[in-house]
Structure formats: structure tokens, C-alpha cells
């Protein structure tokens, strides 16, 4: 009987601790929204709220991918390169200003598959060659940018395809199609994380890879699958950016590598792996987008945003790492 009495308070205490930690980012989001609403009359309009959701769409999709890699305890710096390659590929495959191809939805699929393939390469390099993920993904990012530059070939391909263009312009219930795509992506990613073996194992790999391997799970294939899925999300994000910009650009994904990591970390997905998740990261995406929007409305230079993100990520990682100080003694 005694153990039961002992465990119950312990468990409820643990649960309360978890819920307080999980509640941090949403509360921060709420506070920032309230403060910005008080500071700027332009901020507290319905139109601006819709703008913020539209602006968050691409980052939300990209961050879904990054989140799974972070759950593993790995990191993915390849979003910029993968998105550049996908953006160019989709721009030359759908109806465009440079060639006579008009593959439509097939072109979009090819771009997403290419991105998934690049993600798969990162994963394979991590698993087979045991190269740390920040190095492989840095290399794959460079390869992606190279592919993008090759396809770009000096002439910017403009997107003519009306259906792809409508992604950014068409509206449903006041929000652009892009935002609805992002909502669907977040739901799918959450479903994968919560209810599939891939998602559960990703979490477990981040928590204790050795234990999982010792209990007979072949970890490698799941890691490769996670990197591949992350690549697919980047690819879709790149298609969305291309629709927004109306043309394929090599640098179209340049800011997303860092923004997605920042968003995930701010939302409570830890870099050490095993903690957080898609919904946490989505709160982080909203937090970051609200902050960006608010700073611009208050009149801060858009160039300051990168600096703010840099500071935020360092502070967020430091705060998240503080309770784990003794767990990971060696920090590389």
C-alpha cells in the first residue's frame, strides 16, 4: 500500500511541473499580444490579426519539419538550401515565364520529392557515416543552393500557373489558402508525432537513444525517415514561398533555417531532444511572427529582426538548458 501513497503525489507533482513548463510559451504569446495591442493601435485590428496568421504560414510548415529533427536531438541547418532548390524546381516545372513546361500539381510534387530526397541524404549521412547532423545538413544546404543556382541559370523564372499563384492570393474565410495549407500541415504533423510509430520513436530517440537501441529498435531507419519528412516539409514551404514571391529565387529560403530553429526552441522544443513537439513549435512560430509584426508596426528597422531572433534563441536555449545543467555536463 505504501508505494501507492508515495507515487501519487510524486506523479501529480510531475504533471503539474510539466504543465507549467508547457504553459510558458502560450502565456508569453498572450502577454506580447496584450502589450503590443496597448502600444500600437494598428496592431489591435482584425485585419492585422489575419495578416499575422498569413505571415506565419510558411514558417509554420518549415518549423513542422525542423521540430521532428530537433525531437531526435539532432539539428537541421539545411532548410535554406533545400528550399532554394525546391523553389527553383517548382518555378521551372509549373507554367512559367522561361520554358513551355506546364506540369501543374505534378511539378509541385516533384519539388517536394526533391526536397525529401535531400533530407534523406542528410539522414543517411548522419546514420551511415556518423557525421554530426549540423555538419551534414550544412553540407546538404550548400548542395541545395548549388542545385538552385544551376536551375536558376541567370534568368529568374516567373510563376505564371494560375492555381499556384492563387495559393497566396485566394482567400477562404479571410485567410489565404497558404494559411489553410499550414493549418493542415500542422495537424498532420501533430498526428504523426502523436499517433504514429515514427513520431513516438522520434521522441524516444531524442530522450534516450541508447535505451531504445538496447531494447531492440533499429534506430537508423527512423532517423533517416525523420530527416526525409523534414525535407518534404521544407519542400512544401518552398512551394508556398514561390507562390508568395511569384518567382523562383535561390535565396527564397535563406531566413527560414534560423527562424524555424528559433521558433521551435522558443515554443519549448528543446535542442537536447525528446521534449516539446509540433504544437509547442507552432506557438513559437506565432510568437515570433507576432513579435516581428509588432516591431515593424512600432517602427523598428526590419534588419533588426535577425538580431532579435539571434538573441531570442540564445536566451531561450539558456533558459531551457538551466534545469538540465547537471544532466549534460559536457557542452560542445
Amino acid at each position, binding site marked *: 500500500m505504501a508505494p501507492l501513497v508515495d507515487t501519487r503525489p510524486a506523479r501529480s507533482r510531475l504533471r503539474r511541473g510539466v504543465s507549467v513548463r508547457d504553459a510558458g510559451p502560450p502565456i508569453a504569446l498572450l502577454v506580447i499580444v496584450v502589450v503590443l495591442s496597448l502600444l500600437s493601435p494598428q496592431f489591435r485590428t482584425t485585419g492585422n490579426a489575419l495578416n499575422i496568421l498569413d505571415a506565419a504560414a510558411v514558417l509554420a510548415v518549415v518549423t513542422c519539419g525542423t521540430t521532428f529533427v530537433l525531437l531526435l536531438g539532432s539539428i537541421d541547418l539545411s532548410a535554406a538550401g533545400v528550399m532554394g532548390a525546391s523553389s527553383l524546381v517548382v518555378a521551372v516545372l509549373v507554367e512559367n515565364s522561361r520554358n513551355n513546361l506546364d506540369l501543374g500539381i505534378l511539378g509541385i510534387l516533384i519539388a517536394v520529392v526533391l526536397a525529401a530526397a535531400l533530407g534523406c541524404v542528410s539522414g543517411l549521412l548522419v546514420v551511415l557515416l556518423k557525421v554530426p547532423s549540423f555538419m551534414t545538413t550544412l553540407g546538404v544546404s550548400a548542395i541545395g543552393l548549388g542545385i538552385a543556382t544551376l536551375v536558376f541559370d541567370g534568368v529568374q523564372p516567373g510563376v505564371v500557373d494560375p492555381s499556384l499563384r492563387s495559393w497566396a492570393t485566394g482567400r477562404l474565410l479571410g485567410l489565404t489558402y497558404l494559411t489553410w495549407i499550414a493549418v493542415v500541415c500542422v495537424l498532420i504533423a501533430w498526428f504523426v508525432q502523436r499517433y504514429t510509430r515514427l513520431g513516438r520513436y522520434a521522441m524516444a530517440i531524442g530522450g534516450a537513444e541508447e535505451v531504445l537501441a538496447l531494447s531492440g529498435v533499429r534506430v537508423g531507419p527512423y532517423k533517416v525517415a525523420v530527416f526525409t519528412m523534414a525535407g518534404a516539409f521544407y519542400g512544401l514551404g518552398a512551394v508556398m514561398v514561390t507562390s508568395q514571391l511569384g518567382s523562383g529565387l535561390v535565396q527564397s529560403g535563406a531566413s527560414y533555417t*534560423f527562424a524555424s530553429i528559433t521558433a521551435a526552441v522558443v515554443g519549448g522544443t528543446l535542442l537536447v531532444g525528446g521534449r516539446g513537439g509540433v504544437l509547442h513549435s507552432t506557438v513559437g512560430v506565432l510568437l515570433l511572427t507576432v513579435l516581428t509584426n509588432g516591431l515593424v508596426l512600432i517602427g523598428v528597422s526590419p534588419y533588426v529582426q535577425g538580431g532579435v531572433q539571434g538573441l531570442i*534563441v540564445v536566451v531561450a536555449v539558456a533558459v531551457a538548458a538551466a534545469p538540465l545543467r547537471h544532466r549534460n555536463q559536457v*557542452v560542445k
Partner: protein
Amino acid sequence: MSAPVTIRPSSDAAVVKGGPTRSESLTSLMPVLALVSLVIALAAAKPGFLSQPSMTAVVDAAAPLAVLAAGATIAVLCGGIDLSIAALASLSSVLLAMWLPTLGGLASVAVVGVAAAAGALQGAAHVFLRIPSFIVTLGGMSLFSSIALVISGAAPVPVIDDGPIRWGFTRIFDVVPSAAVVAVVVVAVLALLIKATPLGSWITATGYSEPAARLAGIPVDPLKIGAFCVSGACAGLAGVLLVARTFSGGPTMADSLLLPAVAAIVVGGTAITGGHGGLWRTLVGALVVTLLRVGLSVVGVSAAYESILYGALIVAAVALTLDRSKVMVVK
């Protein structure tokens, strides 16, 4: 009573063994072999390649890259990485161009000092806040770029009187590029400093096994902060060299040098896991990377392949030099 889980540090294998194994001595010779074969291949492909003007041009082009990579090598030897070097060099170029009219010759010193301080700050954040170095320096990269863009108004800052920094881009006796001399001096001074003092063994120990180094009483924390400080200072100096040759500072001027610099470090044979490697290797690595770039244009391959090449090169070189005995779980 004790849990049956024993974690055996597999790195003891690396410590116990006597000399380098055959594969190790081969990998340590590889950069030099690569350099020699590249020179031979280029000389065969382009007859005029071994001429003095063309060699001077190659060495000159490699110099800022070598300086940039030399500092970051120390951070890598300690087991960390500095991804902010290119952005910091860009920021330094902007600061130098803005300060030259008022500070004159002192501007270069001030810029290197500021860059060193920025590096030390990152090192302190890494050590005291226990944040992985790549995430600190990734944050730093974003922060430095943003500062450079804001203070320069996102436009190049022209240098009208380049007198005080002409030392960074002249030819000594009309032959030797001064930038190359600067690069060699930087590497030599750092290498001597490391060899002549206990710093060398401290750095190696920290890189190979940080817990062991701590237990042995090595001041690991100040050492790491110092490594990032040197890395920052070298980035600042690279920025000065870049301004000297372009007569302007630009907020994104050096950003494209990050991948070549990382490539130079790992191609030189410095293990990304820390401990194993050296500064002269980075010098060789910088030459290899520069020659590869030259080689691409000689063969007539589109410059777009350059980026693909760097990516493949980095992954391949890291895979070859990685100390697998130390990596139990690959993150």
C-alpha cells in the same frame, strides 16, 4: 544494488595507444597529397598555371580565407565550432570602413579588438550558459549580420582614403602578396603560442575529453572563451584584409566565406570532434579550397557547382577525419 548499466568511455582506446595508426598517418598526410595532386593536375590542364603571376593570384585569394579559418580552427580543436566567423568578418568590414576616416591607422586595431570581444562574448555565453557552441554562434551570426545591416543601412560603405590599410593589399618586392604574409604570420604566431606554452596540450586535452581535462585541473572554461576570442579576432582581421582589397565594407561581404572556411578546416584534417588537428593544416586546407575553385573555372565548369562542391567536400572530409571512437551517439 547497483544498476547493471555501465557506460564505458570508448575514448580510452584513443588515449592508450602509442603512436598514430597507419590510417591516421595517412589521413594526416592527405591534405598535403591533395594539394600536391591539385597543383600537378592544374599545371597539366593549364600550362601557364605554374607561372609566378598566377601563383601569386592564388596565394593572394587564399589569404583572407586562411586567416578566417585559422581562428576558427582553435575553436574546433577545443571541440566546439564557430559559425559566426563570416558574419563577424562582414560586420568588421563595415566597422572598419566607417571608422577609417576618424581613427586612421588605429581603426584596424579597434576593429580586431571589437571582433575579439564579440568572440569572447560568444565563448562566455557558450561556457556559462551551457549552450552548444554551434547554436550560440548561429545566434551570433544572425545578430552580427543584423547589426552590420542596420549600421550600414544595408549598403556598401566606400573607403575614400585607403592609406592606413594599404598594408593589407600590396605586393612585397612586387611579388609576394602582403595578405599572404599576414596569413602566414597569423598562423605562425598562433601555432608558436600553442606549441611553446601549455596551451597546446590543454587544447588537445579539452578537445579529446573535456571531463578528463576538467579533472586534470585544466582551466577549460577560460580556455574555451579564449579560443572563441581568437576566432573572433581572426574574423576581424579577415574583414580588414577584405576591405583593403575591395576599398569598401559591405554588410554581407564575407558571408559567402563561411562554407569555404569550414571546408578549409575539415579538409586540412582537423577533426570536427575536437583534439586532433592543427593550424598549419588549415593553411593547407585553405590553399586546397582555393585551388579547387580556381580549378573549376580552369576546367570550365559553371560557378554554380562551387557550392555543391563545398557541401560534398565538407561532408566527405568530416566523415574521413571523424574520431568515431568518441562518437557513441550521433546527434
